[in-house]
């Protein structure tokens, strides 16, 4: 076997352009993905060069301030996973199995939160239910007691709304993949509708449900934007890591909490990728027929409709409140219309928006090309080391943003590579955090492409760069542009990792939004929220135009 490996190496050495790109990719992955992670691990257990795992000892001896955020995080994540999967399932069942009206509208509502930043939900929740919240004030006036949303209830509420769309997308795919004939035969054999649902539909959807639970669990564990706004006196791991590093300058504590956070997130990721992916009961029978609309009783249909409508209504209200809040003089106290906050935001905050757009655009341009190149290398058949690159490039899927962020601080604050305070470090954080998604999309795109096309290009004498630029890129352009639009949206709305590396020179609008919330300037925060949402919408509209008006017109039809 080693002789064959040697031959593969010899082949790569003779293929100079591919060798170059493999080395560049490896250098990027090692320097900007692996190195920061190693620094986190190192700082967690070493102090001044000695092995001092003091916070781990405290963790295992049950010290409250180390162990409490851990259990808080797990509690929130477990509850959010259950609620968002439940709601996601209700939406998915309603849109795939019943003929309720306004399906497309509900589908839209259930997918919008995916591209909008999660903390918009927290901002809306505070505007409604915070200390000066509209509903809070109403309760105070009519019922005479004061209550607010801060803490566990706020986290559950906002994260559920932020993350149920992921569960919805998974379960929608799973439910429409279950052949309706299975359910119909159960009904034909005399099973009741409820029994059919419990004994046929639900078991078949189990792997999908488990996948949705794991994904939303991970999202909640990693979430930073919502807890920093709404956690109140209920500290979770991500926010405690942030405070340990930026508030207490306690690097070993921050690193230790980061390692503790890594354990459940990596575990959930591994379970999802290597265990669940093999346990699928999806019956492949082509597209679901119209008879997928299993005969649901009118009672069930209209109760599903009411639940789905209620949640959609709340989501719309949440977004509306943010927009409303941005035009309100002093939220909760003086509710008159004003453009003052916009004027303020545009005088003070324009540069944050410009920085965000600029850095996100640069990162997206690099990330799109880099991601597709990694995908190309990973799917190349005759290439040694593709398995390693595949593994390395997927690591940051499993690593929470806040851990990437502190890794970058540890790694690039001191020589040999000093990047603190530069635009470069923000771009690199965006890249290391968001490229894995482009790679995954790119691999899917390339697997659609007939491998002979790539082989023909090489056979005719084209090296890596020409094959990539003249054949691979043009043929995958529409899908790549879509992937890049989502990467751009993800960068613009990004907070957890970049909050650690912003500087006076380079600041981001998401970080500025949190700062505004922190000083109680909720209306200004709302303005920033609206600007972020508009940027995201702009990117997606632009993507649509580029794909349909330019790319699809230019390429030949009917491949």
């Amino acid at each position, binding site marked *: *076997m080693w*002789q*064959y490996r040697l*031959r*593969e190496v*010899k*082949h790569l*050495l*003779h*293929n100079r352009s*591919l060798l170059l790109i493999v080395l560049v990719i490896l250098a990027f992955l090692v320097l900007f993905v692996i190195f920061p992670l190693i620094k986190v691990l190192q700082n967690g257990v070493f102090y001044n060069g000695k092995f001092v795992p003091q916070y781990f000892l405290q963790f295992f001896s049950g010290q409250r301030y180390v162990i409490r955020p851990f259990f808080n995080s797990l509690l929130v994540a477990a509850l959010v996973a259950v609620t968002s999967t439940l709601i996601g399932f209700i939406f998915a069942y309603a849109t795939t199995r019943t003929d309720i009206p306004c399906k497309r509208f509900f589908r839209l509502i259930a997918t919008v939160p995916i591209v909008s930043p999660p903390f918009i939900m927290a901002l809306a929740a505070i505007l409604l239910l915070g200390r000066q919240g509209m509903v809070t004030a109403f309760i105070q006036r009519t019922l005479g007691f004061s209550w607010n949303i801060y803490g566990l209830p706020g986290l559950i509420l906002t994260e559920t709304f932020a993350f149920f769309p992921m569960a919805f997308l998974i379960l929608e795919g799973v439910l429409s993949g279950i052949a309706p004939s299975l359910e119909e035969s159960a009904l034909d054999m005399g099973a009741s509708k409820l029994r059919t649902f419990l004994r046929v539909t639900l078991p078949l959807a189990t792997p999908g449900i488990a996948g949705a639970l794991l994904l939303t669990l991970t999202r909640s564990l990693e979430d930073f934007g919502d807890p920093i706004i709404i956690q109140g006196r209920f500290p979770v791991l991500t926010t405690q890591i942030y405070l340990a590093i930026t508030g207490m300058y306690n690097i070993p504590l921050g690193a230790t909490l980061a390692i503790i956070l890594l354990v459940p997130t990596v575990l959930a990721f591994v379970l999802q990728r290597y265990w669940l992916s093999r346990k699928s009961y999806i019956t492949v029978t082509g597209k679901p027929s119209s008879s997928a609309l299993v005969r649901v009783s009118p009672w069930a249909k209209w109760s599903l409709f009411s639940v789905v409508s209620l949640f959609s209504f709340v989501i719309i209200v949440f977004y509306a409140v943010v927009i409303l809040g941005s035009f309100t003089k002093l939220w909760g106290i003086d509710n008159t219309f004003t453009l003052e906050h916009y004027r303020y935001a545009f005088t003070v905050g324009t540069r944050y928006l410009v920085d965000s757009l600029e850095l996100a655009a640069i990162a997206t341009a690099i990330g799109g090309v880099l991601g597709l190149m990694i995908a190309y290398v990973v799917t190349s058949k*005759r290439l040694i080391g593709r398995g390693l690159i595949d593994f390395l490039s997927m690591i940051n899927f499993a690593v929470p943003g806040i851990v990437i962020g502190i890794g970058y601080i540890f790694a690039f604050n001191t020589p040999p590579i000093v990047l603190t305070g530069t635009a470069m470090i923000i771009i690199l954080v965006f890249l290391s955090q968001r490229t894995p998604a482009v790679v995954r999309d790119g691999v899917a795109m390339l697997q659609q492409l*007939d491998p*002979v*096309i790539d*082989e*023909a*290009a*090489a*056979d*005719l*004498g*084209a*090296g890596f760069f*020409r094959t990539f630029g*003249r*054949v691979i890129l*043009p*043929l995958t352009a529409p899908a790549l542009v879509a992937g890049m639009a989502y990467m751009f949206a993800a960068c613009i709305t990004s907070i957890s990792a970049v909050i650690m590396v912003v500087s006076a020179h380079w600041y981001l609008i998401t970080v500025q939004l949190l700062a505004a919330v922190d000083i109680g300037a909720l209306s200004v925060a709302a303005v920033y929220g609206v600007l972020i949402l508009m940027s995201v919408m702009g990117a997606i509209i632009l993507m649509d135009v580029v794909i349909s008006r330019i790319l699809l017109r230019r*390429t*030949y*039809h*009917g*491949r």
Partner: protein
Amino acid sequence: MAAELILRDLTKVFSGKGEQVVAVDKMNLQVSEGQLVTLLGPSGCGKTTTLRMIGGLEIPTQGEISLDQKTITYLPPQRRDTATVFQSYGLFPHMSIFENVAFGLKVRRRPRKEIRERVLETLSLVGLTGLEKRSPNHLSGGQQQRVALARALVIEPKVLLFDEPLSNLDAKLRVETREHIRRIQRSLHITSIYVTHDQAEAMSISDQVAVMNGGLLQQIGPPYEIYAHPANRFVADFIGRANFLKADIVGGSRDRLEIRLIGNVELNIPATPGVSPGDRVVAVVRPEAVDVLPNAEEGDMTATVILAHYTGSLATYKLSLPGDEAIEVEVMNPQEKGFLPEGTAVGVRFHRQSVHLLRE
């Protein structure tokens, strides 16, 4: 631009999930300048894998490939002077026909004027003049096949590789196109390797046919040799149709042998190298090398017709011979010779010249 291609002990083992498959096993082959050699065999015999190793699309597990005395085993496809016509063509769907054919020349940084001239020249050679602005998707299968051929020809490779290039065409077009390919290959004198599972295709266009099975090269030779003197039972059976009869060599001289078939029928036939008196052998008898005589008393032995098919130009019979053996026989022009119904007793005469012996 033609060149000599040599494969030495070329081996490819595919391994995955604890399983190892030997796709090509110690293949040795020498293709001289300007020749067209066909790799012929059933699917899974390793012929396409061999071709892909020559083109650099597959890395050999062992062995070497050399082109014009230079080892090319470790070169990537883009650095080999080979060009492939792929089974599914692999045309670039986002480029016009002109751009497809020009691709290899642009890679080689030829001047614009030269590219234009050579592309148009090659398109006219394959009969596609006037279609250069079309998209590959707007061409018929036969036209796409010719674009693929033009795209490979235009870069003037030292070796042309054909990977079942006609398998996606209908039967009539296949015959036309293979003749076209052979004509161009001869006139340009390009060393070529041609992979196919269709023996008629292989026999009609090749200088040499290399028959493969289970990753092993079974025999290589000109079409006539392969058919008349198959090296083993597989080749005899795979190329054309063959009857196998047990026989003993009972005597012989330098260039003739005396064999005894079942029923003590003795035949005096031309000698086959490698066998000698006293050997137990298998006699290969082609269906068209047997006469069926209406009079059962005539010929070498008596037989009974157990199946009879009439196809117009041919009558095909299955005859049962004494000693539980059966042979298939083809009779040309049954109008003249008469069609014999099942159950008829007939005489059988073997054509001595055409009997070939295999070691048991």
